[in-house]
């Protein structure tokens, strides 16, 4: 046994033999390598961008240009009044110097003039400044005064046949401005040298008869692209309806988007024609829904509308939506598979009224989110619709009691406008769209709610890395 044990002991002893220093060194090297790699600092990641949210600065000046035409220009300062200084001035027609307009915050004033009127709000008076031209005679009509802000879209203009439209480009600045028109017709984009490089002299205006520069039988849509300087476009539409001519302004429509909302559809329209344009290079489809006081409804028998690339499409909605909109507080919603721009032309009691798609307005509390001048007429109505979520709403009137209620998505809210009210502003935290419809005598006017200009976003600017 002992012998066996001895024989076993020998290998055990050799097994216990200390490993060679070299293998220890090797193991040490492996260990050091792993340790050092483990201790390596994580590489500096791309520097965090930090907060690059834009800053907001108070609006210091605001220009609004009101086109020439019948009636008067009503200017209003909307939103919660503040103490800060500011003044509003008007420049009527070709006047060299502007004349100051006494206008307190939360008030409105009217200037009767057929000439074009340029409104400028400076300092605090730029905040919440809106203006519109209103015709309050038998033929009620209205057009908002736009501020020069880049491109503007107009859909459903006429350029021949019974309907013709006249585009006026006004230049609020003293130096010349140049604009291009990009015109679309039912057959696709229209090219014409006459609509390229249209120049407008300083503080002047240029008129283009669209039937002359881009003669087209059907409806057209166009985009005004300032190439130089600032310009404010306005479009006057004329329908030759046998005995009498009907004239109305064509409102600017929202930039192409996949969802278009046209609030305050008249309840009893003799005809209603939806005009859509697809300015993109991909063909798309569109569906129409009507948002009523209670719910959304899809018009019966109205299948999907094909919108070819670069083309204008006209759809007669008269019979299909008549029942759905008769309450007079509906919003027409168009959902496209591609970005579309659109407007709706209705004939009410023999008068032409244009509705345009309006861009959703972000909610704002504590001050007015949106507002508009209310044309003076017999029957006046504000239709509001929340786009995303439900929220309480307060509608303040200049010259009337405030109205409180609640906005709900997929529902239109009708807000009666008290007598004597000349302007209104909406205070809500919900994103919303809205428009004012005024009717009286023979005419009907439509004005969209606009976000009240209050502040301006200033980007965080950095050199690229």
């Amino acid at each position: 046994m002992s012998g066996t044990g001895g024989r076993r002991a020998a290998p055990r002893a050799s097994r216990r033999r200390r490993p060679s220093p070299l293998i220890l060194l090797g193991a040490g090297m492996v260990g050091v390598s792993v340790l050092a790699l483990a201790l390596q600092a994580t590489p500096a990641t791309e520097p965090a961008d930090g907060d690059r949210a834009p800053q907001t600065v108070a609006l210091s000046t605001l220009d609004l240009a009101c086109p020439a035409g019948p009636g008067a220009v009503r200017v209003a300062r909307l939103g919660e009044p503040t103490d800060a200084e500011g003044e509003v001035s008007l420049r009527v027609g070709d006047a060299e110097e502007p004349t100051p307009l006494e206008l307190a915050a939360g008030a409105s004033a009217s200037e009767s003039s057929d000439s074009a009127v340029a409104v400028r709000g400076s300092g605090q008076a730029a905040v919440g400044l809106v203006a519109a031209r209103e015709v309050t005679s038998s033929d009620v009509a209205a057009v908002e005064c736009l501020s020069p802000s880049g491109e503007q879209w107009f859909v459903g203009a006429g350029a021949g046949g019974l309907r013709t439209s006249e585009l006026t480009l006004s230049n609020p600045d003293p130096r010349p401005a140049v604009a291009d028109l990009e015109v679309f017709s039912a057959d696709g984009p229209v090219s014409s040298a006459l609509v390229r490089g249209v120049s407008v002299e300083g503080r002047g205006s240029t008129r283009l008869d669209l039937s002359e520069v881009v003669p087209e039988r059907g409806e057209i849509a166009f985009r005004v692209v300032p190439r130089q300087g600032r310009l404010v476009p306005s479009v006057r539409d004329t329908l030759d309806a046998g005995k009498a001519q009907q004239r109305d302004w064509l409102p600017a429509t929202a930039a192409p988007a996949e969802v278009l909302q046209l609030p305050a559809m008249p309840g009893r329209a003799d005809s209603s024609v939806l005009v859509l344009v697809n300015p993109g290079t991909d063909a798309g489809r569109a569906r129409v829904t009507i948002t009523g006081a209670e719910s959304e409804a899809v018009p019966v028998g109205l299948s999907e509308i094909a919108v070819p690339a670069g083309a204008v499409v006209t759809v007669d909605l008269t019979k299909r939506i008549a029942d759905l909109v008769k309450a007079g507080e509906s919003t027409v919603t168009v959902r496209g598979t591609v970005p579309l721009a659109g407007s709706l032309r209705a004939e009410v009691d023999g008068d032409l009224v244009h509705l345009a798609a309006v861009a959703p307005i972000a909610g704002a509390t504590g001050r007015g989110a949106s507002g508009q001048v209310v044309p003076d007429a017999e029957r006046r109505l504000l239709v509001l619709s929340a786009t995303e979520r439900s929220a309480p709403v307060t509608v303040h009137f200049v010259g009337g009691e405030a109205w409180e209620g609640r906005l709900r998505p997929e529902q239109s809210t009708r807000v009666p406008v008290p007598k004597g009210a000349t302007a209104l502003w909406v205070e809500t935290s919900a994103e919303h769209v809205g428009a004012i419809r005024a009717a009286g005598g023979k005419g009907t006017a439509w004005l969209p709610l606009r976000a009240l200009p209050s502040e301006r976003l200033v980007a965080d600017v950095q050199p690229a890395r």
Partner: protein
Amino acid sequence: MTVTTLLVSHDGARWLPAVLAGLRDQQRPPDQSLAIDTGSSDESTALLVDALGLDHVRQVRGGFPQAVRQVLSEIDTEWVWILHDDAAPAPGALAELLRVAEQQRADVVGAKLREWPDLKRLLEVGVTISASARRETGLERGEYDQGQHDAVREVLAVNTAGMLVRRTLLERLDGFDDELPVFAADLDFGWRAARVGARTVIAPDAIVFHAEASHRDLRDGGRTAHRREREALMYTVLANSRGPNGAWRWLRLLSGSLVRALGLLLARAPRAAADELAAIAAVHGRPGRLRRARAARRDLGDGKVALAPWWLPLRHGLDFVSDVTSAALAQGRDLGERRRGVADDVDDEDGPGDDSGLLVRLLTSPLALSVLAVLVAMLVAARVAFGSLEGGALSPAPGTAGYWWDLLTSGWHPLAQGTDAPAPSYLIPFALLGSLLLDSASAAVSALFVLGVPLAGWGAWRFARRVAVLSSGRTPSAWLVGWAALAWAMVPVASGAWGQGRFGVRAAAVLLPWLAGASLGFLDGEPDRRRRAGWRTGLLLAAVTAFSPGAWVLAVVVVLAVLVILRVIAPSLARTRSVWGPLLVVLVVPPVLLLPGTLGMLGHDIGGLLLEAGRSMPGPDGWDLLTGRLPGPSAPLWIGALLVLAGVAALVPAASRLAVVACWAVVATTAILAAALSRLEVDLPSGATGPGLSFGLLMIHGALITAILIAVQALGSRAAPVTAARRSAARLTPQRALGAAGAVLLALVPLGGLGWWLVAGDDLLQRPASSPVPAYMTQAGDEDPDRGVLVVTGTIETGLDWSVRRGEGPFLGEDEILALTDVDAGLADDVTTLLTTPDDAVTVALPGRGIEHVVLPAPADPALIGLLDGTSGLSRASTSDRATPAWQFETPVADGAVSGESPWWFGWVLTLQVIALLAVIVLCGPTRREQR
């Protein structure tokens, strides 16, 4: 026909017995023999007196010309046969000379000179002289006499050793020129003879064995023979040229000599170069001598002179260059080859460089077929790189390589607002390559990405063989070497460096095996080879450093570590200058060769020296380094992990453990250095970033592959060599099974990488995208950098980023310059004003800063478009893409808005860099033995 033999002797006792015997054995003995001794200090005189008798020996003071002239009066025979004390005639020499003289009616007849004592190598069969004053024999060096030059023909001159000359001609020309005591006397004599209408022919059947004692410096042990020979030859050309050709010949000689001296310097033959210059100086230093010589030759006549053709010096230059090049290329193999030569004499059957019939080898060798298949797979996998390329770290290449040269040679670049930031040094190899590829920069980039992978494999193949031989003293299996080569070639691919456009890593992977191979030269026993290894390693390290700056830092650590270890284990070696000197050379060469970059960086941020080449990319962390993957698209994790496990397992075989531990020491050093460097932060104007660590990945994986190679080679050495039959008959033992499994796993590493690359290969590379800037603005910027374009991206909501483009670009090489360039604060303020609260002043200020256009690449923020549309002083500019609006400032741009001065030192440093580069290349070259 009577002949007198004239034997001229000076300290020729070594050769005289043989010469005298040759004279004695002549089949046609001379009628008279005279010997002249010109003051020998050995026993020459005694030997002459013994052989010829006291009457026939003369003592003359002076050189060969004086000696001949002095005894000429004593000679009355028709012919004189001149012999030197180191020129032994064959027995039939004189008879043949006389026969030819009679037959050809010649005045001078020369013998065929062969190497002493009776060898077959030809020395001269008649000579002439070229315009660059070179003695032309028309023979190759060491050419054997096989009768190929055995035609009797007319020549310019024949060597005085064995020259048979009419006495009357000697008298008419007054013998030889006293100014040519040793060299070129024959050429000068032949030239003068030709001018007087004498006929010189060569008699090839008359053979004289010549020791060329004077030419070889054997006679007096002096080292001036070469210089004196050059001087004599130049003197000969200048003294004999006549007419309008004279000035031209002088110009050609002078310029040729200077070029020759430069060439000799470049080939590391400084003594020969000095001789050349000294010879020019000596000839021109004594104008009176030349004048006298030319006057003396004025009336000789206009006989036809058979000089060497004009193109001969050019051919010699070409031969010289090709000699040096092939020597430089051959020197790579020194150490391993010699070691293998000792260890085994069996030539390897593998290797792509072997020289048997290519097609036969290809079709019969599985290895060759595999190599071919891998090469084809690599080319297919790299197909995206055929054509111009960008993506990841890689910016597009400029139109021409000349653009890169401009960047390299300008101290001021009209980029951004103008900058004196240095151009990255890797542009030197890129520009060189691009110029070679017909001035195409994108071809250079494509070459790196297409050929870089196989080239890295080739370098690794050579290095792996040398390492395997060094570690085991045995030729490695070609499959093993092939594995290592492919594994290495796949490291930059699998790590994602290839697909992420990290060309710095890509290029470093190509160069690293060569660098490692060059550094093996430090193990050589010969100091000269170690010195050359130092310069070569330094040069390659500079190239690697240019692409991957971490290399130099690592080299510093490794060299210091080696010096410390040497000091501990072999203090005497550590004190030897030829040991530590070359190591220090390695460290000094890169900063000097990359001097403009190094110095330029001082003016900006020295940390910029540590940046990875190309656009900024995320760096690897410790885990990435270990597993060989760079952040971004890269091969699956298991490939790198397998290699690491195999590297650990390589520690097991005891025979190779020391070498494997050394490899792990490299890994550990790299890891420690990476850990240290990762804590640094380089704060550049373009933002804080970390030093480039990707080189560490190459080092770690290179060391692991080397460790595995050495261990497998050691395992292979231990196993008894078995024949194929025995191998197939062998039983499957557990050990064998383990080995087979290991081999399969190892093979998976490179094959997995190759497969991934070929099939799934995810990469960021693409054709360069078209610029959002309209072409006409780019063109305007190319023509005038002042006409810059402000490119604004982003939206007001998310923040706006701006950059200034001047012409096309930024191109490869400009990213680093821009990264180092501080943003012009005034410009930044103006741009911020323009994009937030534009006023009239800013639309005037920006053109003053060299901004002509503003471009908002699609999708542009409509609010920003409105803002700029409403800004006075800006008008819309046309663009082809409607979604990309652009504006032009109405104020014209200011001239010279971005022009500036190079740093004052730039030109000097650039010159120094070029000189240093040439010097290092020369010092890398093989040592030229300056024996004649």
